[in-house]
Structures are given as C-alpha cells and as structure tokens.
C-alpha cells in the first residue's frame, strides 16, 4: 500500500503541471466557451442567455457566415489534396540514391519552413499584385494578367496556392514512408513484369496509406484553422468582397472587432463539430483504403 501511494504521488508530481494547465487553460475555458455560445456577450456587460439564437443566426440570417464557411471548405478541399499530391509526387522523385537528394530535400522543404510567417504572407501579397511577378509570368506565357485583389475567387486561389506551395513537411513524411517500403517488393513485382503504374497502385499506395491517412487528418485540421495568410494578405479585412474571409478570420473579427463574444464562441463550437466530423469521416473511410501491415494484410 505504502509503495502504491508513493508511486501515485511521484506520478502526479511529474504530470502535475499538465493537469493544472489543462484545468486552467483548457477545461475551464471550454466550459466557459460552451456557456458563452448560448449568450449575447460583448465583454463589457454581463452575458445574456439567448438559447440557440447564435446558432440559428449563423445558418439562417448571416449570409456572411455561410459564405465564410463555403470558402473555407473550398480552401480545405482544394488545398489539402493538391498539397498532398505535390508532396507525394516530389517525394517519389526524391526517393532515389542520388547524392543530390539531401540538397533537393532541403530546397523543397524551405517554403514549409517559412510558410507560416508574416514575411511570407507579405511576399505573397506582393508577387500576386497587379504588376507582381505572377502576372508578369502569365503575360510572358501569353495569358491575360489576373487582378488577384479585384476578384474574390482569384483571391481565394491565391491563398490556396500559398498553402500548396508549403507541401514540404508532408513531403518529408512521405519520403520517410517511402524509404521504409522494402525494396524487395518492387524487385519481385519487376520480375513478374509489373509496370510503373501497377507498382505504384499495388505497392506504393497501399504501403504508404497509413502515412497518407495521418497527413490527410493533420493537414485538414490545420487548414481549417488557417489564419495568418488570410489576415495578412487581406490586411485584416477578409477582402476583396469577403473572398479571403476564412472561418478563423471571421471568428476573430466577430470576437475582437465587433465584440460579439457569444456569437464567436458559438462559431468556435460549430468549427469543433465540423473538424470532428471531417476527422471521423477520414478515419471511417480509412477502413476501405488504409492497409496495415500488422493485420497481416494479404
């Protein structure tokens, strides 16, 4: 008994900071946020209980909210697959014995490294400007320049390109995954006369599927919460015409610009539910396409 007590004491001594932090900075705020989501609260007057009003407003009388939700979905479902595709293609290109691979790996990773910074968002804003280098390149190719800041759809794609540009960290994870596939599988397939595509779909994709799953989940969650590029590129407005008003940015504006703390809290909860559903959908679907070696496979 004595040693049990002592063991527990040591255990809680060590993880104590986590428990205290969890209570103070996570669980209490979660409960408070849940409560606020049913109130009208402006930070200066006491919260006023309004039941489901906030949620009702979101889906029935706030077109800006629905618009923000829509473009965030476009951002996530265009950006994440494109990013993963790039990551996979480049990882396969780099999965060779060439001595230059280390250098290439570094170069391709650099955008990911600096991608979250304000500096890069500023840079992106400038290269997509009316006389920026993107339009110069388009004109050289004989394509009409695009007014990226004059058109909400173009502005959203500017953000999607920025997200795709940062495929480097996913690429590193894929590269590590590719290296762990036994070379003998490919050799055996070659002996049987398999083509490149047959090898790709029957060896590479199944063997890599747990890593793809992991990447898909993490990138989807992260993409849903994107804030910095939208904030910087639109100078905090979400413009043009709300074209870059991603969910997090709209939430931030509702909370800290209009002081609709109750509404913003309700938005955060809807976001949590959406992320939860997306994650479970990916996990649920994984049954059909993720191949786990330890289950014996085929």
């Amino acid at each position, binding site marked *: 008994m004595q040693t049990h007590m002592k*063991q527990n004491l*040591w*255990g809680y*001594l*060590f*993880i104590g*900071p*986590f*428990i205290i*932090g*969890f209570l103070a*900075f*996570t669980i*209490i*705020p979660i409960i408070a*946020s849940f409560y*606020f989501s049913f109130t009208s609260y402006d930070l200066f007057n006491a919260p006023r209980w309004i039941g489901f009003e906030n949620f009702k407003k979101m889906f029935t009388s706030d077109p800006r909210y629905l618009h923000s939700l829509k473009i965030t979905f476009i951002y996530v479902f265009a950006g994440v697959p494109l990013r993963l595709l790039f990551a996979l293609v480049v990882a396969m*290109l780099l999965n060779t014995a*060439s001595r*230059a691979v280390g250098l*290439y790996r570094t*170069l391709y*990773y*650099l*955008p*990911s*490294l*600096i991608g*979250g*910074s*304000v*500096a890069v968002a*500023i*840079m*992106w*804003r*400038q290269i997509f400007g009316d*006389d920026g*280098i993107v339009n110069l390149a388009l004109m050289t190719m004989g394509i009409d320049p695009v007014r990226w800041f004059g058109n909400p759809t173009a502005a959203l794609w500017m953000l999607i390109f920025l997200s795709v540009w940062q495929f480097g960290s996913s690429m*590193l994870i894929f590269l*590590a995954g590719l290296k762990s596939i036994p070379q003998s599988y490919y050799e055996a397939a070659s002996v049987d006369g398999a083509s490149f595509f047959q090898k790709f779909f029957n060896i590479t994709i199944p063997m890599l599927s747990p890593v793809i799953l992991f*990447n898909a989940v*993490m990138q989807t*969650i992260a993409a849903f919460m994107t*804030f*910095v590029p939208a*904030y910087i590129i639109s*100078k905090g407005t979400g413009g043009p015409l709300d074209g870059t008003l991603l969910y997090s940015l709209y*939430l931030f504006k509702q*909370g*800290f610009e209009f002081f609709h*703390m109750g509404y913003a*809290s309700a*938005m*955060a*909860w809807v*976001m*949590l539910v959406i*992320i939860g559903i997306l*994650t479970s959908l990916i996990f649920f679907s994984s049954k059909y396409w993720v191949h786990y070696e330890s289950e014996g496979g085929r």
Partner: protein
Amino acid sequence: MQAKYIKKIIYHLIVGCFAILLLYPVIWLIMSSFKQSEKIFATAESLIPQPFILSNYAQGWAGFGDYGFDTYILNTFIFVILVLIGHLISCSLIAFGFARLKFAGRSFWFAIMILTLMLPYEVVMIPQYIIFAQLDWLNSLKPLVVPAYFGHPFFIFLLVQFIRTIPRELDEAAIIDGCNTFGIYRRIILPLIVPALATTSIFTFYWTWDNLLGPVLYLNSPSKYTVSMALNMFLSNETVSNWGAMFAMSVVSLIPVFIIFFIFQRYVVDGISTSGLKG
C-alpha cells in the same frame, strides 16, 4: 551508358528547375530588398538590383514612429526564450511522468493530453482572453508565456515516444545505485533525451517566432510588439511606396529561421519525418 547519363541529366534538370521555380518568390523578395522602392515593381522582372542599395535596411531598421526594429527583435527573442524555458522544463517533467511512472489514472490523463492536441485554439481563445483580462495580464507577455510552463501536448507526446525507446534497465540500475525518482529523471533520462529536446527547442522557436494571433490579441503598445506584429504594422501603415523597407525587414525576420534551420537541419528533418511535426 550514354542513355543512363542522359536520364540522369534530365532528372536533375527537372528536379532542379522545379526547386528554383518554387523558391523564386523568396529569391525575388531578397533581391528586391536591395532595390530602390520605386524600382521594385517597375523592374519586377529582373533579379539584379540596379542600383544596389542598402538604405532599405537602414530605413526599416529605424522602424516606424518611436521604436526601431531592434526593439521588436529583442522583444521577440525574450518571448521565444521565456516560452522555450517553459517548454523544456515542463514538457520533459510531464513526459517522464507519462513514459516511466506507474500511477492511478495515467492512461486517462494521457488520453486527455492526446485529445487536447486536436483541440482548435479558437474554442478556448475567447474565454482565455477574458480570464487574462480579469487577471489584468493584457498588454503583457504573461498570457503568451505562462501557459508554456504547463506543457505543450505536441512536445510532451514527442518526448514520451522518445523516452519509451530508452531501456528500462538503466532506470533499474540507477535505483540500485540509490537514485530516487527525481534522480532517474535528472541523471538518466534528461541527458539521454537531448536530441528530442533539441527538436522541441527548434519547433518552439519557429512557432513562437512566427506567432501572430497571440501577439495581436494580447499586445497593444508598440513598445512591446514582436517582429510579426511589427511587419503587420508596416503593412497597414504601408505608405504609397515604402516597399523597400518592408521587404528588407521581412528578409531580416526570416534570417534567424534560416540560421537555426541550417545549423540543426538534421533535427528538423528527423522531427518531421518521425513524428509529423508541422514545419
């Protein structure tokens, strides 16, 4: 033989050119920071600054209004170091508890920790703000730094995974030699998890250095601004054509990130490849 060479050359051409294309915006940013402001867009197609000037850096460094860029850099370094100390101490202690100690409720708390990993910051952002406002911590680094002393789920997880690879025989030998639990942490585990602590430090540095939302929420007076905030201020004060200074300071803000990356490249790459840390 010939065909093999040609294949190799084509491979390097494709992979190399694509890398240059990818990095072209960054190269353009750096080269433009040496151009005169009014020439940046007029000569956007050229990478060569003509004339080559350094005054953008002097101008940007002098900053806007009362504070120079040195103030913002110093503020950011203080911010990073305080968070870093917090993460190193708290995450190593907590990870040791989870990985090595047996106590009632361990799996429960571990599961909770993994769940918080998935929790969007937006959910706790507003109540946290209210709590810190009540504590009168607004317009100070406290709301940004104090939570770091209570662990960060990502790094705790990383360290737990790392500690689990260390043979338990070492702990047992230490117990026989008369070490208590804290001694095992201090003398056995801590020295052995230095590589994982390095990864923790590097990513803490990146995330804190780049953090914009936190400072935007909590810092109001320009004297306390971080580099991210200062760049944001540059952008919103953007007078008609002072691109040069803004580009120059953007480049300055990236320099520490590059330096840390090139020194500790191995830890960064390993950290991402093995644990999926987002870079």
